[in-house]
């Protein structure tokens, strides 16, 4: 294999017991891709644990895994055929480890769905197939494994083929091939076998070699998300990875979401110089002719092909969080290098991939999946676990797939996933963890659920008027967003709600937004940067309406000192400085998820 070749990235997914690891082990073994150490180690472990040597063990490096008989995480293994090199991403199938499957599968050029021919298509087979579709993987092949268990019978193979192809069709995917296989006995891996006289198709390796290569992003629209701006020396270098398109020195470009135009002056490089052109996939740096302020998160494109700029968009997402995704709750959205606070404004539809099974096959369930995204206003009290195709649910549970409208606090430069992958897919962070991912499917109009204080260019987000409730049915605290509003100097603000009551004279200090607002006689008296703000002895609340335990100028100085923009108002800061109950309470409510 030469260094000029690129590897095709493959992922194998499927039910935990359907033999993915064995297929991978067999592929590596039959293509002579295993180092001696790996086989020795597995033989040693097999002896130590008193088990029979199996190909699947090659992929299990962990004690815990072998105890449980499941693979915990993703591995990357390379092998070569006579034609080209491949990287296999082993995607574990256990239900609880969906997040690991996603970690592996998200990067793949092609996917193989492994199905046990004796057991047929099961819940996880379907769930994984629907994830593949959401991850934007379009090349999918099916492997009917363990053919040895069904005596290589054609009807078992045809059942897997027909069931899986029908399901893939509902997802808008087409199976590239369905390959009968026995990983255990090594049948139909490299070449054909006399055990499968009825099968006229390609073997596994032949199927792999027939797949088209990785797509060519160089022909697409120009997208360079700004990753950082460096000034290590006299040069001011904008750094980023060219995600799509082609960029040349001298190109006229525009920087979004603002849209200011400039020209690419140079492409610095180390240790060489003289770079004049970059293609998709390269991590580059550029200098531009006009030195205006640039920051991480902006997207550079050609003015002739700009990315849509919006705060509201439609998306398909999958959820992996321990707690459900809740409409109206705050999350951090990361899309390319942009990171902004968002809320899920509407949950249009929840599809529990596993339950699609429960709906009768064929036209009936196609109908359910494609049911219009009619947005019904009312939410039924006590709406419990979302059903297949439920419209307007209030939450999305772990392992579910949903169609949603997302509202961001700031304008985003993004793309439809179909136009550009890198700027058309995102993750949602809940607390400290990535809890979901999705793809942009539509750009929406900008009506959204946020409140702001606005003075000229200054825009300060305001969550003072959110309502908190304790739901007796859900046994959890829920939050309802306030109606969207903009408050300027002179405007009255709502001092009393169902769960808050503010005094007529107080100050709001928003440390994350670096701003303060003075409220006098219930009106906005002043909106000013924190640097210009002085403590006047009135009560202080933060941007969420939580009182700050500040009684003196000295307290205020210490409070400011404890705040770090990087950590935000984290648990330590909150415990020390915030008092929830000074102006807020949490009234009881009967299981209404309305947020």
């Amino acid at each position, binding site marked *: 294999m030469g*260094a*000029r*070749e*690129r*590897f095709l990235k493959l992922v194998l997914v499927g039910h935990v017991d359907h033999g993915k690891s064995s297929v991978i082990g067999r592929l590596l073994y039959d293509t002579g891709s*295993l*180092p*001696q*150490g*790996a086989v020795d*180690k597995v033989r040693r472990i097999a002896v*130590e644990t008193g088990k029979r040597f199996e190909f699947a063990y090659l992929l299990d*490096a*962990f*004690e*815990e895994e072998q105890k449980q008989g499941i693979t*915990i*995480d*993703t*591995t*990357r293994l390379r092998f070569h055929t006579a034609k080209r*090199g491949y990287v296999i991403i082993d995607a574990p199938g256990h239900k609880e480890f969906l*997040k*690991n499957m*996603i*970690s592996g599968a*998200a*990067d793949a050029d092609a996917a193989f769905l492994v199905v046990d021919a004796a057991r047929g298509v099961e819940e996880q087979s379907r769930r994984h197939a629907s994830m593949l579709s959401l991850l934007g993987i379009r090349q999918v092949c099916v492997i009917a494994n363990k053919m040895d268990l069904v005596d290589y019978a054609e009807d078992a193979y045809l059942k897997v083929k027909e069931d899986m192809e029908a399901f893939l069709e509902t997802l808008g995917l087409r199976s590239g091939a369905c390959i009968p296989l026995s990983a255990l006995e090594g049948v139909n891996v490299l070449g054909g076998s006399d055990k499968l006289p009825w099968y006229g198709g390609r073997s596994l390796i032949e199927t792999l070699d027939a797949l088209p290569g990785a797509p060519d992003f160089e022909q697409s629209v120009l997208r360079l998300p700004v*990753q*950082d701006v*460096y000034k*290590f*020396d006299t040069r001011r*270098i904008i*750094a980023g*990875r060219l995600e799509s398109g082609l960029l040349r020195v001298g190109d006229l470009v525009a920087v979004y979401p603002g849209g200011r135009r400039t020209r690419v002056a140079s492409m610095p*490089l*180390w*240790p060489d110089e003289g770079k004049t052109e970059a*293609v998709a*996939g*390269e*991590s580059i*740096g550029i200098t531009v002719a006009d030195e205006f302020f640039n920051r991480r998160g902006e997207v550079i494109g050609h003015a002739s092909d700009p990315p849509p700029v919006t705060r509201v968009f439609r998306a398909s997402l999958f959820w*992996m969080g321990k707690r459900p995704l809740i409409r109206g709750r705050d999350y951090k959205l*990361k899309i390319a290098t942009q990171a902004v606070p968002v809320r899920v404004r509407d949950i249009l539809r929840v599809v529990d991939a596993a339950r699609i099974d429960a709906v009768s096959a064929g036209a009936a369930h196609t109908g359910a999946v494609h049911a219009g995204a009619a947005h019904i206003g009312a939410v039924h009290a006590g709406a419990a676990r979302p059903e297949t195709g439920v419209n307007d649910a209030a939450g999305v549970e772990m392992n579910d797939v949903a169609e949603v409208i997302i509202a961001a606090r700031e304008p985003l430069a993004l793309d439809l996933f179909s136009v550009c992958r*890198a700027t058309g*897919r995102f*993750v949602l*962070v809940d*607390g*400290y*963890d*990535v*809890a979901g*991912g999705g793809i942009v499917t539509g750009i929406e109009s900008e009506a959204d659920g946020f409140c702001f204080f606005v003075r000229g260019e200054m825009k300060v987000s305001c969550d003072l008027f959110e309502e908190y409730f304790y739901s007796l049915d859900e046994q959890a605290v829920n939050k309802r967003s306030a109606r969207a509003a903009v408050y300027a100097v002179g405007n009255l603000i709502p001092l009393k709600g169902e769960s808050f009551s503010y005094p007529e004279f107080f100050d709001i200090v928003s440390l994350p937004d670096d701003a303060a607002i003075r409220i006098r006689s219930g009106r906005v008296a002043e909106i000013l940067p924190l640097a210009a703000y002085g403590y006047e002895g009135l009560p202080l609340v933060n941007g969420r309406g939580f009182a700050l335990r500040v009684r003196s100028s000295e307290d205020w100085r210490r409070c400011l000192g404890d705040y770090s923009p*990087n950590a935000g108002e*984290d*648990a*330590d800061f909150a415990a020390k400085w915030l008092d929830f109950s000074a102006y807020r309470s949490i009234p009881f409510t009967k299981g209404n998820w309305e947020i």
Partner: protein
Amino acid sequence: MDYLDALEAHSIYILREAYNRLGKLGMLWSIGKDSTVMLWLAKKAFFGHCPFPLVHVDTTFKIPSMISYRDKTAAELGLDLIVHVNREAIEAGLGPESGRLKCCAALKTEALQQVVRLHAFEGLIVGVRRDEEGSRSKERVFSERNAHDEWDYAHQAPEFWDQFKTEFPKGHHIRVHPLLQWTEIDIWRYIGREKIPVIDLYFSRDGERYRSLGCLPCTGRIQSSAATVEEIIAELEHTTVSERAGRAQDREDAYAMQKLRKAGYM
């Protein structure tokens, strides 16, 4: 772009993410080929600069020429180099004769914990590769360590689309792994292509060479006549012996590396 270009671009992206998203950073430099490639990638990422210090955890048992090479190279390149030794353990007489795993735990794992605390690093850039050893194949690119430096590999958040772990509680730190997807042969092909200087211990002398560098008592040489980068590449294309075959601590028991790594080993 060929596949080395793609690996390089991805590693540069990771280094830049670490520099932008994490607080105080340090980069482990073991003098070996991998971390030497990583230093080269950092200079590419930051246009000739390395905007964070290098950290060498010195066990005092390293192959002696590694130390002289380290000091010479640091001086030549003007590197900001932190050398850390677990003095208490050395003074308490710890060494290979105390038992290999115990020695690694004290002079490498514990020493690493000390240096992370001492400099309050929020991000530690480490040149481990997935193909080196089984437990490393489970790693994330941004891998969280708790306040006790432990790695909770069974409950790691998903990592995909290059959206890395940049949210974590205070007191935790992130191990950043820019070379996770490289293999041994990729490293040598890249060294050859970029003409990156590496220590001569890797090249055959008297029919033997080091394939992996570590402490003198616990690191063996392999039989090899490969005396140039090209010859090493040719040798690796045909070998079926694993890279760390010469590293004694891996062979203590089948799960030795996993146990070490869970507790904070690199």
